[in-house]
């Protein structure tokens, strides 16, 4: 475990207020989802999941075809597709376009993909003003913090935090009523929308047969970002493609319900190109940035390729008992929760945080709620095996490796197993039936100490099952 991870986990667990905030926020989302996918509300839920998985599987397996089809249709409708291999290429494109158009102000709607490539930082480095317009993201931008959760980015902040923040950064009076805080942000951002030269969004889906981007939201900031400025740039990972507009009838039924329990989010935009002749408003230029940034590497791993099916609903975060304890900032990258745990090692390499695949009890709650049926526990297990193979190659963690070799040998030799068990039972205290707060010196190994740090040890029974069975 890295020290950073350790410390962050510890401090999060020790913060009672934060624990409550995380538990309550995720608990609410759990309840809302449950109601929204109940048999009475959505009788086809399981069938839709199967269909969504099948569509994603097919699309990913033929990704080149659908990317080309998407590009052809974007172009046909007057837009342009920009292919970017990494963060630098995206920034270069935006900067280049901004320069060419004399653009200075950018408004942004929520996009994990742009967080992934630190787009705001890069733009600001070149003196462009890029303003987040989703309320939660706006708050985080002012606070210089990363999102805590895919769907509820500021869940770790209280209204008092927000009041202090606005007072400090916007020069307004310290207001602690959420409705009033929202109005403050609304007024500030409205001016930005109307003055902005470029609007940058992400995309929930890229629709190949239409050359369209689909964006879901509740506030209206994505609509404003894509309707007010003259230029709209949508930045999306290449894995966001789906074949047909009609497939949205499957995905839209799953996304809102899985994320927040809403049958549909307040706004769903289906945007294909700049405004057409005769349309009164809308952008004059439309760009879709297709981002690789390592996705083709994930694609190459057949066993873990399904990690790319993710539609970023956040359900896995909400239901993960580990996430609900350690929160979003314990994770080393922008993506947190179970999906973060499986894609971070694949994007950044397992060495970035080798303990990440192990930070799971494999309870399977994530897989149960994933709308596209990603088998997250399976990918975690694959990653664990990879970590151990890497340790073997580099010769690290020798003791554990030896322990498991020995363990396996014992477990394959029943008589040796019995002898080893008897020896261990000889050392282990019987505790006269009571559970043990401490272990004897001979048993004071790291795993035993780790166990005892949190709970008592079971006492060793007088006889093992097999002894008792023989005596029956």
């Amino acid at each position, binding site marked *: 475990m890295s020290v950073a991870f350790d410390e962050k986990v510890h401090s999060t667990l020790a913060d009672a207020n934060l624990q409550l905030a995380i538990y309550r926020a995720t608990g609410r989302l759990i309840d809302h989802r449950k109601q929204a996918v109940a048999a009475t509300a959505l009788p086809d839920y399981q069938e839709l999941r199967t269909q969504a998985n099948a569509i994603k599987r097919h699309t990913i397996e033929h990704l080149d075809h659908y990317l080309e089809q998407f590009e052809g249709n974007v172009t046909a409708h007057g837009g342009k597709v920009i292919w970017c291999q990494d963060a630098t290429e995206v920034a270069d494109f935006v900067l280049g376009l901004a320069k060419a158009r004399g653009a200075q102000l950018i408004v942004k709607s929520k996009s994990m993909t742009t967080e992934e490539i630190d787009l705001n930082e890069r733009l600001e480095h070149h003196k462009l003003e890029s303003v987040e317009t989703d309320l939660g993201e706006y708050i985080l931008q002012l606070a210089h913090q990363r999102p805590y959760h895919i769907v509820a980015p500021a869940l770790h902040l209280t209204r008092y935090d927000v009041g202090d923040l606005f007072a400090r950064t916007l020069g307004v009076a310290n207001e602690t009523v959420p409705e009033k805080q929202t109005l403050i942000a609304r007024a500030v951002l409205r001016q930005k929308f109307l003055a902005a030269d470029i609007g940058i969004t992400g995309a929930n889906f890229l629709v190949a047969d239409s050359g369209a981007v689909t964006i879901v939201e509740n506030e209206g900031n994505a609509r404003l970002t894509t309707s007010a400025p003259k230029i709209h740039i949508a930045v999306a990972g290449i894995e966001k493609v789906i074949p047909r507009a009609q497939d949205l009838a499957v995905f839209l039924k799953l996304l809102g319900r899985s994320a927040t329990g809403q049958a549909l989010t307040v706004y769903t935009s289906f945007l294909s190109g700049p405004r057409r002749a005769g349309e009164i408003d809308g952008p004059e230029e439309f760009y879709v940035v297709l981002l690789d940034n390592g996705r083709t590497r994930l694609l190459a791993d057949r066993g873990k390729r399904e990690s790319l099916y993710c539609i970023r609903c956040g359900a896995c975060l909400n239901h993960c008992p580990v996430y609900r304890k350690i929160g979003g900032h314990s994770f080393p990258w922008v993506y947190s929760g179970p999906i973060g745990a499986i894609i971070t090692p694949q994007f950044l390499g397992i060495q970035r945080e080798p303990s990440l695949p192990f930070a799971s009890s494999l309870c399977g709650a994530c897989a149960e709620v994933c709308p596209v049926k990603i088998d997250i526990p399976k990918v975690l*297990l694959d990653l664990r095996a990879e970590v151990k193979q890497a340790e073997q190659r580099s010769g690290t963690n020798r003791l554990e490796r030896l322990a498991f070799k020995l363990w396996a040998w014992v477990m394959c030799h029943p008589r040796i197993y019995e002898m080893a068990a008897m020896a261990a039972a000889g050392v282990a205290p019987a505790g006269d039936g009571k559970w043990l707060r401490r272990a004897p010196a001979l048993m004071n190994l790291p795993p035993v100490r780790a166990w005892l*740090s949190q709970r008592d040890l079971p006492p060793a029974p007088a006889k093992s099952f097999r002894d008792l069975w023989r005596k029956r």
Partner: protein
Amino acid sequence: MAQRVSIFVTCIVDQLFPQVGLAMAGVLERLGYAVDFPEDQTCCGQPAFNTGYRREACQVARHFLKVFRDSEYVVVPSGSCTSMIAHHFHDLFGGDAEALRDTEALAPRVWEFSKFVLEVAGVEDVGARLEDVVTYHDSCHALREFGIRDGPRRLLANVRGLELREMDAAEECCGFGGTFSVKLPEISGGMVRTKIDSIVRTGAKTVVSVDSSCLMQIQGALARAALPVRTMHLAEVLASR
């Protein structure tokens, strides 16, 4: 002649909770089965598999296949061990066609205990009696890999003198997760404390589940908090008279 069933008690029951194995055998016998305990059994390999040591897990899995090759039924007092055998053995055997065949042949014959009672023995009332107020913890693998949820509750409902109270978040993981419990103890501890808060709120005197590893985690935390709540495996409840 009585139908023979083999029992795979699991290493944790063998060494730490033998009464669970005895209880399970007792219930099976009362249901009319002849129980045999292949003595060469040790472990299903899950600890190694979950920790990423596939080769070691594979060795142990092979041993398991050998031990139980001729068993018509293998009954297991654990959802996680049953899941290892039924769902993960084939991940271990890669290109080994023979081992895969053996797995395919054996896996359908391996049964988690409550599922065996309900679906093979076809019994919902084993004639048990236990005066107690209990709450039931849904062990993750049993729940999510085998859909074991209503079954144990139906079995408990038929135990005379027993009152079952549902806890909030019965389906939330207890935080054991095998080596997770000792690799990330703080998180594991946080999770089990949330679980015992739920338990305490029910006022139940006993926590029941179908997995001894969950019960070990929960009982360890209850003992640490000095709470007067005990744990019992479903088999022990059903063996009570």
